[in-house]
């Protein structure tokens, strides 16, 4: 599904204050074409289909995403095994450098998220190299840049400036999400692009992070789930010919 993506939105199922239907209708109004609801780490995986059903009938594609916040390597492996085949995107919240490192070496991870209060050392050169090698994207969450102002926003911009310079040097992929907890924290694709540029992402990369990168991540996982990928680099393109 091409078009613009907002890869990080919360509804009432994961601590947000707007229902999935409210989120979806606001996203349509703002011109977003695809959104990923981050509720799937918080709900029972058996409810995934019913939640996606709730969002059907709108002219926008809704994808499922699970946010994992593991405390150690074992918990990370355990949660990845649990969620990988159930949702479209799996993201890992990197609270420590160790978690960040483990997550960046795991090919089942799609996106790394850094908490707004994170310090630069969490996202090191090594993590950046691993991310680039394993095609794991780094998410730029925009809500903190909208919600806070003054000293806090200045500090956030400084920290993210450093993170981006490490990521850009190592050619890490980026995705952009609002991380909205209510429908008024959503933004349109043009506004998201402008805010990402404010954080320090070059314009062409900001555009790519809103459209191409999330599309490629989704496509890769969809093919894997349908059994079309035999091994990395080998994929079935025409079953009938077999």
């Amino acid at each position, binding site marked *: 599904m091409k078009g613009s993506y907002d890869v990080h939105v919360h509804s009432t199922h994961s601590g947000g204050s707007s229902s999935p239907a409210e989120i979806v209708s606001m996203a349509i*109004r703002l011109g977003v074409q695809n959104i990923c609801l981050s509720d799937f780490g918080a709900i029972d995986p058996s409810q995934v289909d019913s939640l996606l059903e709730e969002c059907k009938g709108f002219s926008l594609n809704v994808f499922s995403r699970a946010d994992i916040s593991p405390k150690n390597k074992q918990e990370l492996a355990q949660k990845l095994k649990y969620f990988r085949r159930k949702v479209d995107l799996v993201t890992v919240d990197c609270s420590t450098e160790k978690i960040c490192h483990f997550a960046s070496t795991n090919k089942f991870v799609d996106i790394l998220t850094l908490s707004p209060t994170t310090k630069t050392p969490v996202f090191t050169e090594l993590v950046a190299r691993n991310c680039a090698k394993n095609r794991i994207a780094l998410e730029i969450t925009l809500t903190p840049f909208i919600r806070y*102002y003054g000293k806090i926003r200045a500090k956030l911009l400084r920290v993210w400036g450093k993170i981006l310079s490490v990521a850009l040097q190592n050619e890490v992929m980026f995705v952009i999400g609002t991380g909205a907890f209510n429908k008024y924290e959503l933004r349109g694709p043009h*506004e998201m692009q402008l805010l990402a540029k404010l954080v320090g992402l070059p314009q062409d990369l900001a555009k790519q992070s809103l459209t191409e990168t999330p599309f490629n991540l989704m496509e890769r996982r969809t093919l894997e789930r349908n059994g079309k990928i035999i091994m990395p680099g080998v994929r079935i393109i025409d079953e009938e010919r077999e």
Partner: protein
Amino acid sequence: MVKEEKSRYIAFETIIEDESPLEVSFVFNSISRSILSLFGEVEASQSGIWLIEYDPETHQGILRCTHKSLEKVQTAMAAVSSIDNRPVIIHLLKTSGTIRSLRSAIEQESTSSQQFEDT
């Protein structure tokens, strides 16, 4: 001879809870405060922003700024999260070099969407 700085006109809409009307001064103040907070006093003085019109009923308005500061003004508008202590989204609709072309583009868009809805 001093060369006059080029202007840009930004059409926008405010999306607010319960769609209640917003005061024009509140809208302008929140945008200028956002520019001041994000880019500082120097940029705010050079942006030359002016709220040409704002209709509290339709929640649509046109803001003028200088050509050079267009992107910064748009970013500041996107960063506005509340007006009059109410959560809000400032949605950028269109940008143009003249008010006339901006108005005709918006009119055209609303007519085509109306036609789409009618069919």
